[in-house]
């Protein structure tokens, strides 16, 4: 596949000025250089990772990361609909907000992953340990992405992990408590932690490769 660095720069500019039609033109224009899944994985995901990294270094704001993800999700849905067999939907992956209703972090990650060509189940917010254990076991979820805002919720992931020891699910955590205490994810027994959506794409890509 040809180098997409020019398109990545252009797409980044379009996203940061919230120009959806320009973003769509850039993505459609790049289709001559690769398959839809390649465009999602390399152009869109690459751009969103760069935007995520800029948030991490304090050069962009969360609202810009959010709007970029939403625009890209809509654009990619047009060239790679949810039912498209090319979407990376195996092993089964789900995302949830653990114990509270602060949904923005989950929404950003969900959009980013979908815009990068992944398909995942959105379990919503306010889920308890018992609810998550039941869903993971019944749905045979292999990768569970958990977003939390509150420290007590983050600490209770330890109990969730213990209740899921008889499964092979991998739990990836993210959210403010894990950003402010970078050792916390290990303490609660998570299998990985993403400080931002860029980290999460890398972790999920690696896990998908290991598990498929």
């Amino acid at each position, binding site marked *: 596949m040809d180098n997409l660095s020019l398109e990545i720069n252009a797409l980044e500019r379009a996203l940061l000025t919230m120009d959806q039609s320009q973003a769509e033109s850039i993505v459609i224009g790049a289709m001559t250089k690769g398959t839809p899944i390649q465009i999602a994985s390399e152009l869109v995901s690459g751009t969103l990772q760069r935007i995520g990294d800029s948030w991490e270094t*304090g050069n962009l704001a969360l609202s810009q990361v959010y709007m970029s993800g939403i625009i890209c999700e809509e654009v990619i849905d047009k060239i790679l609909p949810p039912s498209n067999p090319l979407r990376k939907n195996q092993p089964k992956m789900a995302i949830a907000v653990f114990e509270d209703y602060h949904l923005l972090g989950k929404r950003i990650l969900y959009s980013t992953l979908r815009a990068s060509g992944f398909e995942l189940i959105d379990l919503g917010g*306010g889920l308890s340990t018992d609810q998550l254990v039941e869903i993971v076991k019944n749905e045979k979820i292999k990768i569970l992405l958990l977003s939390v805002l509150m*420290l007590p919720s983050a600490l209770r992931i330890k109990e969730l992990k213990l209740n899921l020891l008889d499964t092979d699910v991998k739990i990836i955590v993210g959210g403010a408590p894990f950003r402010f*205490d970078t050792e916390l994810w290990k303490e609660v027994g998570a299998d990985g932690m993403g400080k931002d959506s860029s980290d999460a794409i890398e972790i999920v890509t690696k896990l998908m490769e290991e598990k498929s």
Partner: protein
Amino acid sequence: MKKNEMTSMERVLTTLSHKEPDRVPLFLLATMHGAKELGMSIKEYFSKGENVAEGQIRINLKYNTDCYYPFFYAPLETEAFGGEVIYTEDGPPNSGRPLITDIQKINSLTAPKVKDSEVLLKVLKSIQILKKHSKDKIPIIGVVMSPFSLPVLQLGFEKYLDIMHFRKDLFNHLMKVNQEFCIDWANAQIEAGATAITYFDPVSSSTIIPRKLYLETGFQIAVHTIAQIKGSTATHFASGNCLPIADLLPQTGTAVVAVSTEEDISKVKEAFKNKLTVLGNMNGIEMRRWTPEQTDKIVKDLIQKAAPGGGFILSDNHGEIPFQVSDEVLFAVSEAVHKYGTYPIIKS
């Protein structure tokens, strides 16, 4: 009290005027530890203003702090609007599902009256008790959620960002309602005896919105709201960054800025020198597993970088110390402030 030792009020007012007091003031913003002191659950503790007042008095005495901080919990104002609050045994009461699920209902939203709100009256009760007890020697810090940040709890973050970008009509109406409420609520706390008001505004932080959007939204709202609050304010970004808007914050009329642990305290102090007093910036989340030795080192470092010249109050970076932080660490913070925070600051 030792000879030449200032009262907490004198200490804080001196540092606010960018002069060196007798020592660095300590705002230990332990909102839930009072429940432990009173042997109560967090839910029972926040059920009465009397409990919170007593909790704050005990925290102040136990750790020799420089303020009373009768902040209950973040979703208090949304509760006054009719929202749901969820209690846990080991953390701050949290907001439930957003109050407004259909954004069109913003058009019919009205602000609650402070005098008719049971939850707000509990806070006023605690402030009144603390006012009597403080005899004007200890500042009482009231709290409001800014009109610009409250919608995160009213609508949820996604819907809020959507209306901020695409539905200016709804955004403007919501700001009008929230601003009217915020001003009334802040002034009711001042009237009850609060010395100053913390203006919590995390959405305005550069972590959440870019400078350009802040200039068009949160900045304008802060200027107009703070001007109508009849007392000093401290703008708190609840762990969010603010250096990219450092030049704008003094123009909002605020006196204090509470900063994130993710920002270098030396750069922050330089940016606000002689303009705003800096409050911060211990990492509250990490504090849970600090040892007393680490605590001593961290507090010493912060004081040496930010305290010279006054204009600095030591505090955590979120405005709410987690319930899991041990008494041992809180004692270590207090001891370190008394050990290293006496002016003139000796650098080592």
